[in-house]
């Protein structure tokens, strides 16, 4: 990032290639919609590109990058249009259409759990309160420490621990209800 700040465009290209997939998947798990996830990932990298002149390495680059991605995702889910998208996404997921569209974009060997269970998990994540969602995904996807997550979402380490715990609990409760219905 410092090389890019000094004018090396190739350095940005390198960062982009290295983090592209992680950021897209983080955004996808956050918002639940593949096309929206790509837009959010592009917006994240664009913010990084614009912020280069002001960049100061106070923490790891990935910590900073995921902080930007989190803010972009949080802004997105605040919009009223997101709730409409979420509803139509859930409607699509119940039908055949989504299954067909998804097949082309996902590697077959990743589809270990049943499609229905994956859909349940995605819906459950999208229904988590914002900060619980952010804390949990930063832990799972980003593998950041509680301290780093605290800096990314502006809260104490203790609060991060509570958010992650509640997020997992809530996820578990939603899935347990689904499994009960299946029985």
């Amino acid at each position: 990032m410092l090389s890019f700040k000094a004018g090396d465009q190739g350095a940005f290209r390198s960062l982009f290639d290295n983090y592209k997939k992680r950021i897209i998947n983080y955004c996808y798990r956050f918002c639940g919609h593949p096309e929206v996830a790509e837009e959010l990932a592009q917006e994240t990298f664009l913010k990084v590109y614009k912020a280069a002149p002001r960049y100061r390495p106070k923490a790891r680059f990935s910590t900073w990058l995921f902080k930007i991605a989190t803010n972009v995702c949080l802004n997105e889910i605040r919009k009223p249009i997101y709730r409409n998208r979420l509803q139509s996404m859930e409607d699509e997921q119940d039908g055949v259409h989504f299954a067909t569209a998804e097949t082309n974009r996902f590697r077959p060997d990743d589809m270990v759990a049943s499609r229905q269970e994956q859909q349940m998990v995605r819906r459950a994540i999208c229904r988590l309160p914002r900060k619980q969602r952010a804390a949990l995904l930063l832990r799972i996807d980003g593998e950041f420490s509680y301290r780093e997550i605290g800096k990314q979402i502006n809260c104490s380490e203790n609060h991060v621990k509570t958010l992650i715990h509640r997020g997992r609990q809530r996820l578990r409760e939603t899935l347990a209800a689904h499994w009960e219905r299946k029985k």
Partner: protein
Amino acid sequence: MIDPCKDETFLTALMDDVLSDAEASAVHRHVAHCPQCRQKLAQLKEADAMLRGLPSMEASADFEPAFWRKVAAEQEKRERRSWARYLLSGWRPVLTGGLAAGLVAGILLLTHPGKSLSPEELFIAEHVELLNDYDVINHLDLLEQWEVLQIMEDQS
């Protein structure tokens, strides 16, 4: 006192490996003897596994081209902004201001050529011949002297 029964977040902290060795040992000992905490820990691990097991997605073919188009648009916007800053910096605003003032003054002069004459000035302009005569009358005695001088000159 570490008691996951009272504070379940210890179970989450254990899963995330953020406890000290002493704390982790205490939680392990508790879980070994507490079926409820053992079950809760298993359920939390199950939820985590479901989350980690979600398939990853690959970027679409248009992801990169679309991103670089946005970067190009951003660079264009930046260049337009820097042109505006260039025009507004240093002596240029003074020159621009002066030219603008001159333009406004020119427009005003063309549309308003001069102020109108007062009634006195108008009277004088209309009766300038009479005024010339008045001037002569005022200096008649001098003129009379002049005639005498002329006669004297002719005679000499």
